[in-house]
């Protein structure tokens, strides 16, 4: 036995054991090393499937590697063995073709049934359009009761945490300004698409990952059985800030959901009222800074100094006539990373952010852009 143990250590097992012990330490928190069954029926099915295949692989691995290591230990030249000369055996070869095939069939059965369940896109109780933008998500509730509700969901983690000047919070990079809110125990259908490049909407706990493709709509349904906050990320490389467009889903009780929806609808009505108003410079600047920080800062810099995008401080657009400035902000610059924000921002926010850009960063143009100007610009197109 001692001999064998020595041999094993000499060979591959030393490092393997080391690795195992590392894993054992990490395994204290199960969720950090394995797939989570999540909070949906489909998620549990996928998790079970994953575990079945994992264990089948482990068993095959043990058998195959045992034979191999037996050979490595006992059939070594240094033990003075004479090599056998056998080769070719049709029986053995048929066996090791047929047996794996049978195992594959065994795997394919649960895989197929799970897939059929996932593709069940029958009528849902709630439809949500999910649109990927560089680099944020837009959610629109399209059922009757949620007619007016549509909003963008931006990363909330401040730049100071990302660039290590502030302590990182618990949900670093996995927090948004406005989470998606869904009622529990409700069949929700996501209609997933994108505005610019490919994205992929992935929330591991919901077991949903579907590509967001510009010009096409993908469907996927989910029914969450446990209330809670579930976090995910964009899973398809979509450019510079691909790592900075998280997803947060709040699953709440039906009552809370209805209440939340009511609030959102009231907010939308409020915006409609605001659109008819005229604002002071201070109001616009204050609102504009908030809009700028969550929409423009990533490319144009915290002080309008530029980055991926052009500088705004002293730029010919921000210090020129209002018309072209609105045009660029509303319709973007085709073929560049400058997106069309006309859809993403309401007229009040658009007016505020343009005003902020024209008066902040030392531009001091002194002119105000009101929501009605934005409205007229859009209408004049």
């Amino acid at each position, binding site marked *: 036995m001692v001999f064998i143990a020595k041999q094993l250590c000499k060979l591959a097992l030393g490092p393997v054991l080391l690795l195992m012990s590392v894993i054992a330490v990490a395994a204290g928190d199960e969720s950090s090393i394995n797939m989570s069954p999540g909070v949906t029926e489909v998620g549990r099915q996928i998790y079970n499937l994953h575990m079945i295949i994992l264990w089948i692989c482990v068993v095959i691995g043990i058998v195959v590697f045992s034979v191999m290591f037996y050979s490595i230990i006992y059939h*070594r030249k240094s033990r003075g063995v004479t090599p056998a000369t056998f*080769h070719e055996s049709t029986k053995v070869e048929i066996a090791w073709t047929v047996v794996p095939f049978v195992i594959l069939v065994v795997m394919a059965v649960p895989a197929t049934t799970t897939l059929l369940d996932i593709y069940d896109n029958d009528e849902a109780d709630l439809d949500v359009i999910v649109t990927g933008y560089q680099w944020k998500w837009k959610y629109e509730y399209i059922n009757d009761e949620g007619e007016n509700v549509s909003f963008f969901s931006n990363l909330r983690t401040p730049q100071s945490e990302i660039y290590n000047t502030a302590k990182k919070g618990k949900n670093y990079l996995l927090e948004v300004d406005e989470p998606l809110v869904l009622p529990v125990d409700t069949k929700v259908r996501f209609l997933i698409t994108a505005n610019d490049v*490919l994205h992929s909407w992935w929330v591991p706990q919901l077991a949903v990952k579907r590509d967001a493709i510009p010009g096409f709509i993908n469907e996927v349904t989910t029914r969450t059985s446990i209330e809670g906050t579930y976090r995910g990320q964009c899973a398809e490389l979509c450019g510079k800030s691909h790592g900075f467009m998280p997803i947060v889903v709040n699953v709440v009780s039906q009552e809370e959901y209805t209440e939340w929806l009511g609030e959102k609808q009231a907010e939308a009505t409020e915006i409609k009222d605001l659109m008819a108003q005229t604002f002071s410079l201070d109001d616009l600047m204050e609102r504009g800074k908030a809009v700028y920080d969550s929409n423009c800062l990533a490319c144009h810099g915290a002080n309008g100094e530029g980055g991926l995008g052009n500088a705004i401080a002293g730029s010919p657009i921000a210090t020129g006539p209002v018309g072209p400035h609105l045009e660029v902000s509303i319709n973007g610059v085709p073929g560049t990373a400058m997106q069309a924000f006309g859809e993403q921002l309401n007229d009040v926010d658009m007016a505020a952010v343009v005003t902020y850009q024209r008066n902040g960063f030392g531009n001091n143009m002194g002119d105000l852009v009101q929501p009605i100007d934005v409205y007229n610009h859009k209408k004049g197109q």
Partner: protein
Amino acid sequence: MGDHHHGPAKGIGRWLFTTNHKDIGTMYLWFSFAMFLLGGFFAMVIRAELFQPGMQLVEPAFFNQMTTLHGLIMVFGAIMPSFVGLANWLIPMMIGAPDMALPRMNNWSFWILPPAFLLLASTLFMEGGAPAFGWTFYAPLSTTYAPPSVTFFIFSIHVLGLSSIMGSINIIATVMNMRAPGMTYMKMPLFVWTCLITAFLLVAVMPVLAGAVTMMLMDIHFGTSFFSAAGGGDPVLFQHIFWFFGHPEVYIIILPAFGVVSQIIPAFSRKPLFGYDSMVYATSSIAFLSFIVWAHHMYTVGMPIAGELFFMYATMLIAVPTGVKVFNWITTMWRGALSFETPMLFCLGFLVLFTLGGFTGLMLSIAPADFQYHDSYFVVAHFHYVMVAGAVFSMTAAIYFWLPKWCGRMYNEAMGKTHFWISFIGFNLTFFPQHFVGLAGMPRRIPDYALQFADFNMMSSIGAFIYGASQLLFLYNVIATIVAGEPVSDEKVWDGAEGLEWTVPTPAPYHTFEEPPRVGPGVHAHG
């Protein structure tokens, strides 16, 4: 030996104008090693940035350039040319031919590679930066939203595709026409077989890749809309075309590795390969299957269920011939007389780790489970197990195995074994934890990550630095061997090695088999 034989020309001209398969093989190998170090350096930048959460060293945009160039350079610059180099050195010596069938084209196919990669690397210094859309360059990120340097990237892909096609045609022509008398197809060494099949795969799919990048070029500069829904095109079409190339490409990388392992394991087991015929058939089946599984890279694009099922079943089937190969290697070792020199250690490392990569591949083939694995670090772990522990380990084994034959000097065995163990530990430390972070929900290609992934990422980075450093030891060992290694004069070098390449003098003379050898009916030409 013919009486007109001559040695290599003098000076730089020898390398620029050479048509000698050994010289060209050597250049391919050095070139691919240089690219391996460059791609490896990019990987170090990636791992250094991911050492801790938060952005420390590079900006996200540059990080994306690093992941993109790392992938492109490793696949097209390091792994593929290294096997072409090996094929150049070995195919003529293994089939008893004096040289490759098309020597002038051979020179060209090498010499257009360095400019192509120079062009690719130069994009780093262009305005807007290098391509930053991943080595899979999905449209429209790589078309409408790409930096201006994408045009140079497209040209570079065209040129290296051209090089691959020329190299492949050469391999096919050589194997089909230049075998020594008596060297039937079913007597060819397995490495020759895998190169032949790989060459056919390359000729079939490289034009498809060229088509894909040409369509990108048209979309970018000439107003077409192949990949833009706004003009009636489809971004998913790009993925279908790319992966119709991309999946066979995976086997283009791994099949020659299978060939190398099938030469080395019998040599150090001192026992013939268990099932030569079934290995040939398994390789051919894998090559065939590689054409009908491409959409398993696209399970989440929203295919109809019939498509998902077809691609899932077809992909699972690949496990059968791959299993046949693994079982064959192990049965070859069974009741042999094993010894564990460096090439054998790398082959055993290959065998264990490639099998693990095969298992995760099987898991990934299950479409519903892939909805959770797809584009996560689990995938990154999987393909590094098959690409690095598969292709790179076997390539390293090949260098240790044949280098003494080529230069007539023995490498330092202790240093070789050290290289193996450091590589093995470093590799597993890098990539094993990536399975965990992937399953726990970390997407790939992100420059920064949530805090729960921090420990494993740090472990992964440390492993990567160890693995990276161990390659410098390899470089040193190879140079030291060529310059001042212990001379070997034994023709066989390894007592268990079989095949025609071991019948020529050591070191292999500049010209070999100027008169074809005869391969008798009872002679084992393969391992």
